[in-house]
């Protein structure tokens, strides 16, 4: 937490970031926090005091307004979850899988992860894409070497030294694997989503899985085994038992890693940009999932999320009809509209997903609605807690 602040501070000094505040990263006033948590301004003040959060006050001569950091917001969400006894009915494993590139998968992943955490869920998100866009979207630089970080005065935690591979026996050649704590990143503090980052060497995992396949082992089960061990809490070095939801951000590939994540998952979300190739890609995904059912009798429930949605365009409508008539169950009621906000966020709010950076924008609204629908689809909430915990409207 601290190190990330110092990183941004230094960026300010270098004039890299436009810098909204002294801290470099966006902060929130009470109203913004209320929007993020879907509660009233008064509840924010009351709960923040109750939780005993260390919240700064605006300096200067004006009114001493509370200034919430991103970490504060997540801390508050966690506090409220505890206070209202909000615990999900079941734990879930979710893969955000883009069967095709450029459909907004990473944006969807990072935002869903944040929104789930704002709902008070404990979220772990795992970047499976060696291009590491998700990792970057949370403010890390996978190509930065420790030496460069030191030279530039950035915190060592800005670098990405490990990824999922380092936690798997395949990678360590049956030697000891890295403990989770070495690999795990907490971009927004303890109560924000946690991240197993990625960097460019992650794709070597695929070659190792292929070796497994050659040797007659079942590499498609590697991720399932790993999750099973982690979620059980048996292994102190790999304790995933605290998480309510484990999310994979899977690249558009049909490789062993991606299939392993899908096989281990209870649910899969496929963002589709509304054009013909993207629609076709859902059919490929359906085939992959169907094969899983035939081979293992285990497969994720698919949800299809329309992204870059513009209902006014005829082409879009044609794709919607193609998808809804073939996959009526999978098609989600909520969609994400085309919006310039996404691009602005990428340019301006470095390291902060849109749902956090622009909580009042309409795409943020849509993302929250889609995430709520997803949580309902995953059956994580009992009807009682749904009202308390999910008033994020």
């Amino acid at each position, binding site marked *: 937490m601290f190190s990330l602040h110092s990183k941004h501070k230094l960026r300010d000094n270098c004039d890299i970031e436009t810098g909204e505040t002294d801290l470099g990263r966006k902060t929130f006033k009470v109203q913004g926090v209320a929007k993020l948590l879907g509660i009233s301004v008064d509840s924010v003040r009351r709960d923040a005091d109750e939780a005993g959060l260390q919240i700064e006050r605006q300096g200067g001569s004006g009114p001493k307004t509370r200034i919430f950091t991103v970490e504060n917001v997540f801390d508050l969400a966690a506090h409220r979850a505890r206070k209202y006894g909000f615990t999900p009915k079941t734990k879930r*494993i979710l893969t955000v899988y883009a069967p095709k590139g450029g459909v907004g998968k990473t944006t969807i992943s990072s935002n869903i992860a944040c929104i789930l955490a704002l709902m008070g869920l404990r979220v772990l998100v795992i970047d499976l894409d060696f291009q590491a866009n998700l990792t970057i979207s949370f403010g890390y630089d996978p190509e930065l070497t420790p030496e460069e970080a030191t030279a530039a005065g950035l915190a060592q935690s800005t670098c990405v030294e490990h990824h999922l591979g380092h936690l798997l026996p395949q990678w360590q*050649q*049956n030697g000891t694997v890295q403990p989770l704590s070495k690999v795990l990143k907490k971009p927004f503090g303890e109560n924000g989503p946690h991240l197993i980052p990625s960097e460019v060497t992650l794709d070597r995992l695929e070659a190792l899985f292929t*070796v497994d396949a*050659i*040797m*007659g*082992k*079942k590499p498609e*089960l590697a991720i*399932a*085994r790993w*999750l*099973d061990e982690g*979620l059980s809490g048996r292994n102190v070095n790999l304790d995933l038992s605290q998480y309510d939801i484990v999310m994979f951000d899977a690249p558009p590939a049909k490789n062993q890693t991606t299939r392993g994540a899908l*096989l*281990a998952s*209870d649910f899969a979300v496929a963002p589709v940009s509304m054009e*013909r190739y993207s*629609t*076709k890609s*859902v*059919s*490929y995904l*359906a*085939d992959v*999932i*169907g094969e*899983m*059912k035939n081979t*293992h*009798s*285990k*497969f*994720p*429930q*698919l949800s299809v999320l329309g992204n870059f949605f513009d209902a006014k365009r*005829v082409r879009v*409508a*044609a794709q919607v*009809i*193609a998808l809804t*008539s*073939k*996959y009526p*169950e*999978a098609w989600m009621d909520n969609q994400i509209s085309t919006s310039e906000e996404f691009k602005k966020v990428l340019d301006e709010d470095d390291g902060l997903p849109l749902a956090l950076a622009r909580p009042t924008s309409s795409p943020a609204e849509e993302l929250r609605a889609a995430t709520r629908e997803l949580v309902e689809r995953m059956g994580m909430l009992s009807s009682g807690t749904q009202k308390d915990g999910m008033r994020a409207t």
Partner: protein
Amino acid sequence: MTKHQQSEADFNASLGERLRATTRTAAPMHMNDLPSGPSKSLADLLNDNQGGDPLPVRDEAPRARSGQANDTTIERRIPLHLIVDSPYQPRKKYDESELQLLGETLKGRGQDEPITVRRLDSGKFELIAGHRRVRAARLIGWSELDARVVSLSDREACLATLVHNESNVKLSDYERGLAYKTALNEGYASTQSEVASVFGCTQARVSQCLSLFDLPQPLLDLMAKYPELITYRKARVIKEVLAKHPSGEETIIQSVEVLIDKPHMDQSELRAVLLKPFEAKRIRSKPPLPRTISDKNGESAFQVQVKSRDILIQVQDGVDVELALQSAITALRQFADTLELPKKQKPVKSNE
């Protein structure tokens, strides 16, 4: 009163119908079905896969070993120099770079699963599963390997070796065919569909791979040396050309050898190569020899040669050229009287 128009609501309601019609005619798209019904839990998935835990051998071995007491199986380390190849092993070729890779893996990870061998009366151990690992281990200079020693009869060992390989790294069509053929010859299966069920593949695959063995013996000999040389698809091309030129078998076999240098040739390229010698011959055999017309005593009077549409008459010494020409023209006139050429040609000629 409003205009003669649909209301907005009616119009909007009709849009869906319109789109449905246009998308269907404009762009029919194949879309795969999503599976429905319940899915196993993660725990069940792993439990179900625990039985066959680290090694695929265990999955297949029981079939081969059925009827055999399992408690005769022991695990121990065996020196590599005591391990011999299975005579039933259908694999003819080991990819050097894959063995290197496997060697690296062995070096890095150690041996994950034991190889499977059976003890021979000679005191040596015959491989059932692990031909590649043994080679890789030799490559990296190991002296022994973990092995599961099973006691199998020749017959059981044969089937176990055949079946084990089927499930493992890619065999060529020829090697597969060889395994299927052995299974048929040895009576493990009596029909192609039984072979398919023993090896866990489709009957089509069995018949494709077995079709290679219809090729002439010299080609089979060639494949024993180069098992990847002829895929069943290429075999189909070869057979097709053989059927067309039954007498040219030798030429065809020779042509097939180009595959040794150009293994990636596709079917149509191969067909072209195989057919080429026959096309060439047809052209060469065309120019007919000059014909000789002799006099009463058998002395040559004329040599007649045809070059495409010209008739060349060479008049020998001692024959009057003018007379020869006249009688040739007379003969042609007589012949022409019997002809009836298509009308169009006549006006052209008469104009000239």
